């Protein structure tokens, strides 16, 4: 992980004919043969392609919004880029480290204190001890949890948990930010802080990959849009053009 030395023109993300399929229905029932025979190309009964033939290239500093209705593969695409899913077809090459703001609170442990959780989550996300020590106060003050450092994480309200998680994630150095709908949570004041933080990170030259249903958020942060429909990438254009097409499709 971590940024490698590279020229600014080298793409940070390259998706090539990316495809992934899932099973419909009872995922618990499989034969050993289909578990181990996943190399086959043909689609088996009860399977569908959540994404197929998706190709795009992302250059450093781009802010990309992924647009589409529910269940059209947006989050799946994000998780493929994050490397927490593996494609069945094609490839996605991510040439730098990514900060996955996907399931924000995923790395936190209920029984540990806020302090222990900050150390744990930050180190799982690749920060070194000295880096965490340096940023610790910043993380705590951004999350506004200074009085709760010794409180077990499970005693925080869900809003506080998300605040803490965002606060840790947004202090990572990774050049690519993957954001999945997380801004929909938290109160208004905190949301404003998050927005300001993302603006700041974009200004510092980070690349943003953003999934949202909120048009004003998309317009605010993104310059380019990817429109997914039925697992296909139907439009890769400016965010305005993509939203226009999306809204036109919705109007039908």
């Amino acid at each position, binding site marked *: 992980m971590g940024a490698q030395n590279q020229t600014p023109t080298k793409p940070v993300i390259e998706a090539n004919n990316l495809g992934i399929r899932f*099973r419909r229905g009872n995922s618990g029932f499989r034969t050993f043969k289909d*578990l181990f025979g996943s190399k086959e190309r043909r689609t088996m009964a009860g399977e569908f392609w959540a994404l197929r033939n998706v190709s795009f290239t992302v250059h450093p500093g781009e802010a990309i919004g992924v647009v589409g209705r529910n269940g059209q593969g947006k989050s799946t695409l994000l998780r493929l880029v994050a490397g927490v899913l593996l494609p069945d077809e094609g490839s996605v090459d991510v040439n730098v480290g990514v900060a996955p703001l996907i399931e924000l609170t995923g790395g936190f442990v209920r029984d540990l204190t806020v302090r222990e959780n900050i150390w*744990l989550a930050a180190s799982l996300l690749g920060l070194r001890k000295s880096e965490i020590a340096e940023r610790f106060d910043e993380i705590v003050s951004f999350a506004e949890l200074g009085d709760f450092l010794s409180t077990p994480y499970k005693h925080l309200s869900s809003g506080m948990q998300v605040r803490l998680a965002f606060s840790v994630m947004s202090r990572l150095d990774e050049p690519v930010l993957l954001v999945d709908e997380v801004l929909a949570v938290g109160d208004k004041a905190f949301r404003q802080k998050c927005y300001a933080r993302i603006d700041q990170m974009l200004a510092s030259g980070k690349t943003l990959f953003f999934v949202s249903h909120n048009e004003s958020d998309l317009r605010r942060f993104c310059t380019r849009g990817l429109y997914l429909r039925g697992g296909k990438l139907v439009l890769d254009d400016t965010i305005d053009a993509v939203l226009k097409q999306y809204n036109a499709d919705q109007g039908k």
Partner: protein
Amino acid sequence: MGYFRALWILTQRDLRVRYSTSKLGYLWSVLEPLAMSAIYWFVFTQVFERTVGETPYIVFLLTALLPWMWFNGAISDASRAFWKESRLVRSIRLPRTVWVNQLVLAKGIEFLLALPVLALFAILGGAQLHIGVVLFPLAIVLQAVCMVGVGLIVAPLVVFYRDLERATKLVLRFLFFATPVIYGTSDLPHGLELWSAINPLAGAISLYRASFFPAQLDWAVVGISSASAAVMLLLGLYVFRRSERALLKAV
């Protein structure tokens, strides 16, 4: 992130959770094998006339029960690993085999921490420390290799077949008696010793016991067990690699 860094962070996390959530903390890793040893000691020396094993029997028991607890604990946890960690697996990219190896390591550290109990009973029971104690690290390696292999098979398959979680429990219970814990390999009916060595724990326990009971060291058993452990590791890596893709979708 480096593999060993991730492994160490998660191991520390598990140990911290374990010791910060219970008042007795460390005592539990000692109490459990002690209680079991006390029960077997009572049944096999006070109720029945003991014909198997060696004296002091409590030391004989502990040299195998502590490793058994390590095995049992890590494999039971492995059968739940991907359910328990699903949110992390879904959101942060870490080397996937870490989820198994971390359990083997965390339980392994608890095993090492419980060893003073063995030393204490060896002193109280007057067991003679033997030169075979140098084989102790070899036993740990042999057991760890076998556990990683078994864990890599069990952990992903349980995600696809929920029933395997209960099946694993049953197999572990069976395995407890199929492993030379309350008896020694040499107590088995003639012809069965070498067959029992296919279970890598038989070889590991033979090596562990060499510390106090030189007669328990059987190189034929150790050899077969080592080969079998290596096969399990390779099989585990194969199963894990092949099921990884489907595993990530199902978690």
